[in-house]
């Protein structure tokens, strides 16, 4: 320790002499001698923020530094340079490598990182801040202060501020800690809260005065963050709700309007997702330039693929089971098994990789603790569009009129010359196609595999049952309501318990209102 103290004094004196270029003495102190002394010298040079230091640190890390006597050389590309002056010199024959232990390497890396804080490249500064986050101590404080003073990027500046506060708050000096705790109360960052909470752990902070201030600051930050968190819950809830909505909209037609229990609905979604995967692969192989827009082609492809499978199902099986819901349920379950195994045979049992287009990855930072991912936003918008076009279709088009007519009174519709069999096929294909769209959307946020549909089938039936049969509006409210309820409970009790509570809630709800949220009124309600 004596040696270390001595070196520190020595090097400080040297630094005072020349602060802006590495001196021979500094270089010597860093390259030759005991590890402790070298580490101290490196720390001091790093703290000085010398502009030649990074290159020398890098050379040390690259094992490119050699010594001969008290001379230090950097050997690059077969040429030896004098480490202090940078002049090309002859490498003496007795030059030895500077060996760095792992500990020394860590020291050097830390020093390099702290120097990068002053780099002109913002990315490098950001990386340096990240690197310093773990294992920052008071010795780096002057450097951080210096970087903080000249930092121009607002985001980096706040991160530096946090870093500085993190150092100060664990400082040995009580007043410094108190000050830091006070100043941190103005923060908007969730990370600051974590930092303060860390300090509040029983063994971290012992002074009662500082503890009180820490608690005050935490609650101040907490109240500022609360809004972001609340909006976050609403957003993830709306996102889940929009997915449920997409899943349930198809069911609202096949089950809600036609009364067909389609247990293969989830597998129709899976087909939509795999159609997206196939389109993505085609674009990747043949149109790499347009890869970012594959999704535009994937949407109709997913719709068509699922609609065709749906039409085939209706024509071959479901048509013969109208009016026998329990049989339909079993037969469509059988179809779902066949579809699942079919996909396994073709694409393998493993999940396949569907990439987001570039414009769908990333997100907007709405608040300091609230990032809205683009793909989730896109799905919400997509769900609204699908809903709107479906509502238009059912309410305004001829097919929609026929579907409603056949649903309400089949013989009467047939008397009016409606080809009810054809309408059934079209309606079922439409519902299936929407399942395909849901699958396409899901492929952007989750895994695509043969089991994709299984996870959603219970949820989606819940939505339809809750919303009431024969209703689009009910489906919408039920999907969004369940989505948000699920996420609210998730924040409170955890994901699995939340799901169980939602299921229990639905079971209880159906007790009260067996017809769902929006019961059909009139004679058709009895059907």
């Amino acid at each position, binding site marked *: 320790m004596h040696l270390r103290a001595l070196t520190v004094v020595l090097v400080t004196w040297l630094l005072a002499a020349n602060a802006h270029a590495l001196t021979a003495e500094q270089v010597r102190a860093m390259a030759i001698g005991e590890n402790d002394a070298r580490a101290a010298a490196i720390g001091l040079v790093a703290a000085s923020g010398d502009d030649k230091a990074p290159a020398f640190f890098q050379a040390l890390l690259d094992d490119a530094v050699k010594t001969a006597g008290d001379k230090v050389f950097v050997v690059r590309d077969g040429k030896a340079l004098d480490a202090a002056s940078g002049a090309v010199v002859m490498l003496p024959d007795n030059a030895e490598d500077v060996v760095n232990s792992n500990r020394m390497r860590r020291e050097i890396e830390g020093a390099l990182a702290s120097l990068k804080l002053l780099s002109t490249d913002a990315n490098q500064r950001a990386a340096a801040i990240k690197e310093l986050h773990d294992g920052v101590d008071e010795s780096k404080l002057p450097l951080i202060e210096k970087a903080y003073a000249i930092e121009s990027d607002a985001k980096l500046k706040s991160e530096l501020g946090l870093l500085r506060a993190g150092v100060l708050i664990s400082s040995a000096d009580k007043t410094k800690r108190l000050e830091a705790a006070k100043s941190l109360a103005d923060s908007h960052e969730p990370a600051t809260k974590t930092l303060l909470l860390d300090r509040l752990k029983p063994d971290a902070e012992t002074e009662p005065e500082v503890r009180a201030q820490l608690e005050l600051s935490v609650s101040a930050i907490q109240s500022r963050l609360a809004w972001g968190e609340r909006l976050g819950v609403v957003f993830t809830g709306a996102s889940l709700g929009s997915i449920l909505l997409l899943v349930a909209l198809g069911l609202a037609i096949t089950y809600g309007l036609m009364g067909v229990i389609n247990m293969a609905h989830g597998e129709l979604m899976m087909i939509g997702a795999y159609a997206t995967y196939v389109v993505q692969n085609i674009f990747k192989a043949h149109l790499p330039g347009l890869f970012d827009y594959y999704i535009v082609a994937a949407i109709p492809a997913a719709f068509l693929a699922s609609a065709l499978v749906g039409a085939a199902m209706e024509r071959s099986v479901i048509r013969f089971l109208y009016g026998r*819901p*329990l049989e339909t349920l079993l037969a469509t379950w059988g179809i779902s098994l066949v579809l699942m195994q079919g996909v396994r045979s073709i694409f393998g049992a493993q999940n396949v990789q569907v990439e987001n287009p570039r414009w769908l990855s990333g997100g907007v930072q709405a608040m300091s603790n609230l990032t809205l991912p683009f793909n989730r936003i896109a799905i919400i918008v997509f769900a609204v569009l699908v809903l709107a076009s479906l509502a238009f279709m059912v309410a305004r088009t001829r097919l929609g009129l026929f579907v409603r007519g056949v649903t309400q009174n*089949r013989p009467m519709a047939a008397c009016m010359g409606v080809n009810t069999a054809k309408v059934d096929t079209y309606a079922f294909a439409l519902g299936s196609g929407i399942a395909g769209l849901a699958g396409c959307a899901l492929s952007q946020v989750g895994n695509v595999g043969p089991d994709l549909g299984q996870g959603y089938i219970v949820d989606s039936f819940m939505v339809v049952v809750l919303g009431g049969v024969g209703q689009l509006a009910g489906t919408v409210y039920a999907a969004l309501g369940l989505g948000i309820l699920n996420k609210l409970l998730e924040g409170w009790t955890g994901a*699995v318990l939340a799901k169980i509570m939602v299921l229990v809630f639905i*079971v209880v709800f159906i*007790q009260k209102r*067996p017809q769902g949220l929006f019961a059909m009124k009139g004679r058709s309600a009895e059907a």
Partner: protein
Amino acid sequence: MSALPETTLSREREREQPANPPMASSLARWRERPFDTSGGVRVIALSALLLIAVIAPILNLAVPQGSALHLSDYAVALIAKIMCYAICALAMDLIWGYTGILSLGHGVFFALGGYAMGMYLMRQIGRDGNYQSDLPDFMVFLDWKALPWHWAFSDSFVATLALIVLVPGLLAFVFGFFAFRSRIKGVYFSIITQAMTFATMLLFFRNETGFGGNNGFTDFKRILGIAIARPSTRMLLFVITGCTLLGFFLFARWLVASKFGRVLQAIRDAESRVMFTGYDPLRYKLTIWVISAVMCGIAGALYVPQVGIINPSEMSPAASIEIAIWTAVGGRASLIGPIVGAFFVNGAKSWFTQAFPEFWLYFLGALFIAVTLFLPQGIIGLVKRRKKEERA
């Protein structure tokens, strides 16, 4: 009306009709074949008993291995397992075939019975587990110091027997009471039973509920202090399972022929008419629902010591819906049908999963479709139709 196209009319007629044969025909069938214990049935029951309790043990234990008549341990295990499934199918038949209520959650009762038995078997392991602790291994692994409260009775065999009946029965009673009281029927009921089993499965997947999480219970060593893997123990369990199945079969036969059973079938065919005649369907439905659940629970309890594992996948919606398909394949509303169906489907399953594992799901799926489209009365219906044709 005559202006309607033929297809629409027939379609419409189908829509109005309930899924099952109307009351008139079921009454006629009932008259045609009154319940009698004389003759045929008694002979069949006795010979089944002989087969299960005498011939099978002799073939398995006394006849030496390698002999053509030897019943291998593998076959014993497989048949025992399928007999447990057959009890489930029979229970499903009572509620679905005879009362017209399709449950997609019977797996939960099966699993609850199984878990009750499993808890007892876990305690029977004693200190022979990997960690040599009094607690089951998975609790040691989770660093628990004491048994959770719901394990309180797990060291008593008598209490376990009671739990096997009470737990599925109580859940069925509470669930059924609320569901039937608000007159939830048909597909709605099916879907909420599915939600029930799904929710319970999620619950049992959690480690903190104290049921071993994903892995469930396994590595059983003994039952009532007797080593569980010994051939004679396995044979004894086999005989008990077979006798239980036979007993339930006779019980169900008595039940459906009684007045109670006739009301059930009337509820299936025209519930509102039954109500207007002065019967309260709630009581009848609730009773048969609880009976059916308890039967499944007992089946589960017999299943666990013989198969040696119970985990939450038994509660997956797929497992429950498979019970329905056994019943449908064999033939609903006949009592031998579900047993035939359970043996047929599970026999096919164990053959397929060995010979062509990738085709099993195709076969099962096709079976679902084919039975609903072409064999509404199942295999038994097919046999009956053949017989009638021969007679004619």
